[in-house]
C-alpha cells in the first residue's frame, strides 16, 4: 500500500493503523496532530484508524513561534 506523508511517498507492506505509522516514522507523539485526506483524526482514534491505499497524511507538530 502506497501512502503520502507530508508530501513524501511511504510504502507499507501490510495493513497499518495511524498509530503504527507514527511508530514506523519514529515520531514523538506529544504535540502532534494528524489529518488524513484533509480531515483531522483525533488522537484517541489513532489505534483503530486503518490506512487505505493512496491516503494523504499530514502530520503537524507544535513548534516555537510568536
Amino acid at each position: 500500500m502506497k501512502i503520502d506523508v507530508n508530501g513524501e511517498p511511504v510504502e507499507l507492506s501490510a495493513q497499518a493503523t495511524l498509530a503504527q505509522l507514527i511508530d514506523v516514522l519514529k515520531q514523538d507523539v506529544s504535540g502532534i496532530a494528524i489529518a488524513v485526506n484533509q480531515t483531522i483524526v483525533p488522537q484517541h482514534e489513532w489505534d483503530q484508524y486503518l490506512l487505505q491505499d493512496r491516503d494523504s497524511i499530514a502530520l503537524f507538530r507544535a513548534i516555537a513561534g510568536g
Partner: protein
Amino acid sequence: MLKIADKTFHSRLFSGTGKFANPSLMTDAILASGTELVTMAMKRVDLNRADDDILRPLIDAGVNLLPNTSGAGTAEEAVFAAKLAREALGTHWIKLEIHPDPKYLLPDPIETLKAAEELVKDGFVVLPYIHADPVLCKRLEQVGCQAVMPLGAPIGSNKGLKTRDFLEIIIEQANVPVIVDAGIGAPSHAAEAMELGADAVLVNTAIAVSPNPVAMAEAFKQAVRAGRMAYEAGLGGVSHAAVASSPLTAFLDEPVC
C-alpha cells in the same frame, strides 16, 4: 491579576517562543520573564529532520500554551490550523493570526473576523491578532473573542507603539482584555503600553534576539510591573506650559509666605 476566559494570570507579560538560539536559552528566558503564557506555532513535520523538542521544557516550566495559526492566509486555513493545534496541545485557546503578506506580516482583518466567528462557535477561546483598529476590535468582541491583541508595529520590527493613539481608543472602549502584541522592541515600550492601560503585552523578538535574552526577559518583567503599577497609581496630567514644583520666589529677595 488578569482574568481571560477560564484563566487567571499574575503576570501581564506574555512571551513568544520563537527566534531563540536554542531551547535551553528559550526556557531560561521564559522562566526569567515570569510569564505564565507562551505562544507556539504549528508546522508540518519534516520526516527527515528531528525538530527541537520545546514542548517538554515548556510543560515542565508550567506555563500556559497558546498556539497560533501563523502560516494561514485565509479564514479556512486558520480554522484548520486552530483545530490541529487543539488536537496537538489539548487546549481550546488559540491566537488567531492571519497574515498573508510576508513583507509586513500585517493581519488580514476580514479573514480574521470570519475565522474568529467560526472558532468561537466551535468552543475556542479566541485571541485575535489584529491592527490597532478600534472598530475591528469591537466587532471581534461582539462575535465572542475573549481578548483582543492589537499590534504596536509590524512583527519583529522593534519599532514600539506606532499605533499608540489608536491603542488608547481601543483600551478606552474595550470590554475585554487588551493585549498589545507585536512591535514591542524595548522594556520602555512595554511600560508605555501598560501605562496606557493595556491589560497585558506579548513580546517575542525583543527578548529572543537580545545578546542576553535572560537579562532582557527580566528587564521586561520589571517594565511591565512598573507600567501597570504606574497606571493603577494614576499618572499626572500632561500640560503644555510648566507647572511649578517649587515656590515661585526669587531666591534671595522675597520671603516665602
